[in-house]
């Protein structure tokens, strides 16, 4: 009996130790697992942040688009770039995004343009470009050039001669190399104008900047000659498939920068007018661009 008792007591003590041991193991392992989870989470977050950039940027510009543009820049070191940030403009208009809403296919974009819903539903930068080009063609713009800007493109319209209210010059819209002092009509008022007044001219060029990069125009003022060469030196169309691949999402803005020049007399250098003599909206509407503005809607209240 004594043997049996001793054996029982040894078994009980073993069981007791085992129970104690058994109760310690889950606690230890759970601590270890918790620490490991935290470490894994930290590593994962840091990896994500390092790959995709800060959260603030990530929410406004997709990583893939940024990578596409970075790769595009590396592959094309001789890109024709617009001075960045662009020179200070006479006026600027941020085109509201809701003119881009609605259509989802290129066909719908085309239909939207025809129905005067200008950028309706453009989903890629390429489609935005086509929408702008279509509007320029309708407004009888004779030429324009494309430039690369950070994460987007810029479209520079040909320098045109305008009258005081911003409308294109009725007869000499594209006569910009010489300020004509001739009579446009054989009337007494026209005769007296030429006899007693130096030739006066206003010129305008518009730069549409489509970019995800925020900017404030600054830097050396644009000259008339530089504005002329900008349309001569740029690309005739957007190059490559990049712009078809990049989505025109919320991170993008379309800003029209209007540069207005004024000259009195042929022998004086045209001066950039800052601020412009008329508003940016007036410039666009008088240029027959964005007919929605003609109804008196402001850029803030597009209609």
């Amino acid at each position, binding site marked *: 009996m004594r043997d049996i008792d001793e054996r029982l007591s040894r078994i009980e003590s073993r069981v007791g130790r085992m129970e104690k041991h058994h109760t310690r193991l889950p606690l230890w392992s759970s601590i270890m697992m918790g620490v490991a989870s935290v470490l894994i989470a930290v590593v994962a977050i840091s990896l994500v942040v390092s790959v995709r950039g800060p959260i603030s940027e990530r929410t406004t510009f997709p990583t893939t688009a940024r990578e596409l543009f970075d790769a595009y820049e590396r592959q094309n070191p001789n890109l024709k770039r617009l001075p960045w940030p662009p020179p200070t403009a006479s006026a600027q208009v941020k085109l509201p995004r809701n003119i881009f809403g609605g259509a989802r296919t290129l066909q719908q974009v085309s239909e939207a343009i025809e129905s005067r819903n200008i950028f309706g539903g453009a989903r890629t930068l390429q489609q935005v470009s086509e929408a702008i080009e279509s509007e320029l063609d309708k407004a009888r713009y004779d030429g324009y050039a494309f430039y690369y800007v950070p994460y987007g493109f810029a479209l520079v319209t040909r320098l045109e001669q305008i009258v005081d209210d911003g409308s294109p010059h009725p007869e000499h819209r594209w006569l910009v190399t*010489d300020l004509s002092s*001739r009579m446009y009509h054989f009337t007494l008022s026209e005769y007296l104008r*030429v*006899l007693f*007044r*130096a030739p006066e001219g206003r010129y305008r060029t518009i730069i549409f900047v489509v970019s995800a990069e925020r900017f404030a125009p600054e830097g050396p003022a644009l000259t008339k000659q530089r504005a002329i060469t900008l349309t001569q030196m740029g690309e005739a169309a957007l190059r490559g498939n990049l712009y078809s691949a990049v989505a025109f999402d919320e991170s993008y803005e379309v800003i029209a920068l209007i540069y207005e020049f004024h000259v009195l*007399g*042929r022998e004086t250098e045209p001066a950039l007018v800052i601020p412009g003599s008329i508003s940016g909206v007036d410039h666009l509407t008088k240029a027959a661009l964005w007919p929605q503005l003609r109804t008196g809607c402001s850029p803030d209240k597009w209609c």
Partner: protein
Amino acid sequence: MEYKLISLETARWRLARVWFIASGIVFVTLVAQSVGTVYEGRLQSAWGWALPNFVPTLALMVSVFAADALRPYDAAHELKVREPFFKLSMGLSIFYLIILFATILAEPLFLTFRSDPNTSPVQLLEISNLWLGPLQGLVVAALGVLFFLKEEGPGRAQKTPPSDPINAKQNP
């Protein structure tokens, strides 16, 4: 052959009236153009062309009238001028002044129909010296006789010393 005579004094004043009125119109026109910066950086060239075309003649007239202004009027010794010559002088003067003014008025047409768009209005003024120069020679010759004559005695006249401001004028 007999010619009608008119008083020299009368002839002078009639001519002076035409010259001062026409020159005044040209002057005012040029001032208006200058204010309107029509001539831009070539303002001096424009005035350098215009002033020698009428200022010396006006100066001659003023100096002659000034010299006579202090003398008592003597109707008995008044000089007479043959009317045809006076009419010739008047006609030449009017024609010259019309051409002078027309040169300025032609600028808008010149600028409209020019072949070279870079041509300046001043260039037209400079070109006009081709026809204004000879005309001016004729006018000065005619006016010189009428304004350089000086009363010497009854019915006689002589030329004044050659203090001729017309000859002193600059050619553009």
